[in-house]
């Protein structure tokens, strides 16, 4: 059971600071067991089941898909436009179903806008797929060769998953930029997306980490949750990278197997032609045919290794980077608060000095500054607490989504493996049957412990 406290404080901050752009709708319902407290230190445990109930109540009916990639223009200025379709039951959109055309830089632009606004509050903003100069150059030249087709499909699927993650996030869905992205016909072109190439994105995350590392005052955590969780996230990211590298190797080896099987099949066919014994010649030619079919199946398997398994890992490596980023944002908030406190301290010391030196006009200014900084300290402290609460809530939501995602992708992966497998079986069965002198099997029924095969008479 997971114990956390958040509802009380989210509501409190919403009431106190007025409407915030990312007001969480799930906090608007009645809380059966929570009680409002003034102190951030009070912890109100709420069970995981209750959180689940709340989420179920507010199931957003927004479905997005990214389809129909189309190459627009020619030469080096060409780009690919995707159809972004939305289906929704929410009233905040202009209609129930609609679509727009977007290009890759539009997606990056959306991310930039969201991350600037939302990550400051500790929100985990899903990162988009990386830019790829090599991949795009090939596509600009021609969209028909297999590697370009694979590249475009990979990007399309990644953009779709990116959007789905954005709209399933309760705070982000409320963001006007998201609505604009989904609805507006003429979206102004995003500029400065160079910063959001793969390298640029990492740079941004690492800049935040560097700032944290350079902090001279180390945070004294009363609650080890943040430290522990951060460590977990770092470890997990490292492991996922390792796993991704191995899966990449698997994809390559399976592609090699494809190639080697095809080449072998051809060689078998030639051998079958050379063979002077008729029956053996036919057996060798048929083996060549079976191996040819195996090549197709290895091909399918390599595709699902890549598109389902490898891409799942790549997505979550990026996502964990974003999670790390929001932990760092919290640290920066803490840093701001500490710096304000030390500035306040300096102002108080300055005031004391002025009192002693007896300079009344400067004293007035000093008192004003102290008041200003006292307000700031209070504000920054509250910001820090709020961002801490948001980070906790975001992380828990992220973990839940991740478990769901992994489960569904693993099932998809296994199902595709199984489908391929079910097709191997009759191929070899047919071959074996011909070998032992029966005709081609014409129907196979299977039950738990046995298979019944009916052969057609030759």
């Amino acid at each position, binding site marked *: 059971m997971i114990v956390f406290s958040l509802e009380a404080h989210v509501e409190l901050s919403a009431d106190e600071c007025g409407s915030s752009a990312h007001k969480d709708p799930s906090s608007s319902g009645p809380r059966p067991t929570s009680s409002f407290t003034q102190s951030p230190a009070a912890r109100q445990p709420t069970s995981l089941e209750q959180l689940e109930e709340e989420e179920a109540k507010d199931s957003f009916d927004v479905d997005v898909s990214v389809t129909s990639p189309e190459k627009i223009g020619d030469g080096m200025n060409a780009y690919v436009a995707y159809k972004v379709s939305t289906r929704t039951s929410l009233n905040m959109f202009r209609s129930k179903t609609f679509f727009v055309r977007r290009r890759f830089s539009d997606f990056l632009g959306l991310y930039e806008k969201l991350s600037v606004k939302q990550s400051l509050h500790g929100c985990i903003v899903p990162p988009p797929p990386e830019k790829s100069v090599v991949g795009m150059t090939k596509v600009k030249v021609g969209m028909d060769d297999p590697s370009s087709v694979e590249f475009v499909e990979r990007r399309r699927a990644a953009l779709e998953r990116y959007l789905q993650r954005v709209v399933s996030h309760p705070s982000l869905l409320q963001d006007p930029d998201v609505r604009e992205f989904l609805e507006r016909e003429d979206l102004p072109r995003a500029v400065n997306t160079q910063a959001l190439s793969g390298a640029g994105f990492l740079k941004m995350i690492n800049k935040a980490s560097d700032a944290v590392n350079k902090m001279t005052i180390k945070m004294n955590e009363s609650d080890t949750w943040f430290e522990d969780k951060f460590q977990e996230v770092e470890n997990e990211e490292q492991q996922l990278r390792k796993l991704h590298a191995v899966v990449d190797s698997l994809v390559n080896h399976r592609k090699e197997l494809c190639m080697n099987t095809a080449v072998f099949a051809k060689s078998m066919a030639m051998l079958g032609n050379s063979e002077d014994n008729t029956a053996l010649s036919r*057996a060798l030619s048929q083996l060549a045919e079976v191996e040819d079919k195996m090549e197709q199946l290895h091909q399918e398997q390599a595709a699902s290794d890549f598109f389902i398994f490898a891409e799942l890992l790549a997505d979550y490596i990026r996502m964990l980077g974003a999670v790390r980023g929001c932990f760092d944002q919290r640290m920066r908030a803490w840093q701001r608060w500490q710096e304000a406190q030390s500035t306040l301290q300096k102002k108080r010391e300055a005031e004391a000095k002025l009192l002693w030196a007896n300079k009344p006009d400067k004293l007035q200014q000093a008192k004003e500054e102290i008041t200003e900084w006292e307000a700031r300290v209070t504000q920054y402290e509250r910001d820090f607490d709020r961002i801490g609460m948001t980070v906790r809530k975001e992380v828990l939501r992220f973990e*839940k989504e991740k478990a769901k995602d992994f489960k569904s992708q693993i099932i998809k992966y296994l199902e595709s493996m199984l489908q391929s497998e079910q097709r191997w079986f009759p191929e070899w069965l047919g071959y074996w049957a011909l070998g032992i002198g029966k005709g081609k099997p014409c129907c196979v029924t299977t039950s738990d412990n046995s298979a019944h095969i009916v052969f057609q008479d030759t």
Partner: protein
Amino acid sequence: MLKATLKTKRLHSTQSVSDTPHLPQLSREVKFTVHTKTTLSSFQKPEFSVPRQHEDFIWLHDTLVETEDYAGLIIPPAPPKPDFEGPREKMHKLGEGEATMTKEEYTKMKQELEAEYLAVFKKTVQVHEIFLQRLSSHPILNKDRNFQIFLEYDQDLSVRRKNAKEMFGGFFKNMVKSADEVLISGVKEVDDFFEQEKTFLLDYYSKIKDSTAKAEKMTRSHKNIADDYIRISATLNSLSSDDSTANKKHLEKMSDLFEKLRKVEGRVASDQELKLTELLRYYMRDIQAAKDLLYRRARALADYENSNKALDKARLKSKDIPQAEEHQQQCLQKFDKLSESGKKELTSFKGRRVVAFRKNLIEMAELEIKHAKVRSSIQLYYICFIMCTNELQYAWGICKILCEQI
């Protein structure tokens, strides 16, 4: 009746007990024990065993090749040297990568390595055994004196081998080796049967050599995939043990799945190796032996033609006619003998090849079917396990999926 079976002993390591398996560095480190059971009176005992090394088999093969009386026979191809290069390379890589692997991953890869080593071992035993079985089932070769010595002589053969080498001097060996396709195609063929055989064997040899190489590559890819599965399983396992969320059990199941799949993949690779690649490799060598027979016959034909020319010359010069006539007769007799026995050998070779191919291809298909079934049931099991959260739903899941398959 002569029957030969082959048992091998693993080399006892003289080093202290260590973690890494000790792989034979040289072929003489593999020691074979040849066990013979016979009812023939030419042998001293009805049942006996002798220790032999790979070099002893080669010696036996070479003496048979160099025996003129057997020129018209297909001499069974010599077994290839035990080749542990693959496992050795893998062991090297394992040693290098040890630092970056978890203990579990390392153990699994070591297991895989040991399995591969065992597979090479089994293969080399099989190939040496087949060589002896071919000899013992051949009506002429199984009476060979050197074959008997090989089976019976209970001292170290290497001393005897050295003496024998001096006797033969490798003359015939060189002769056979220097003969090439030019020689065969240069000689005018009088017999349709041999003409066809020549064309067929030359073509078939190059095709089967190609297929063997391609099959080896295919098997290698399967092995690489099995290795990837090990690493994936190990990494998923560490991810799962560090995970404290709902994802933990999904990762655990995935790790188990890949562990089971890699065992199947490993078996697919080794079955394919034994039934397909080894089959092709063996017949490639056998066809080379058949080609050697054709070379010898072509040589005999060339000798016969030269002797004819010599006889004509002698008749012209009216000098040494009886010698020339006798020489010509000998050449003709030799050529006829080779042709007659050659025809028989090549015909039975064809039959043998068809039977062996059929047997192996059927067995391979059966194994592929078995593997497909095993993999399917593994995948099915894990789909249900992951989809369902308790036993009842699990059973229901299986039924649902099975119904959809029919």
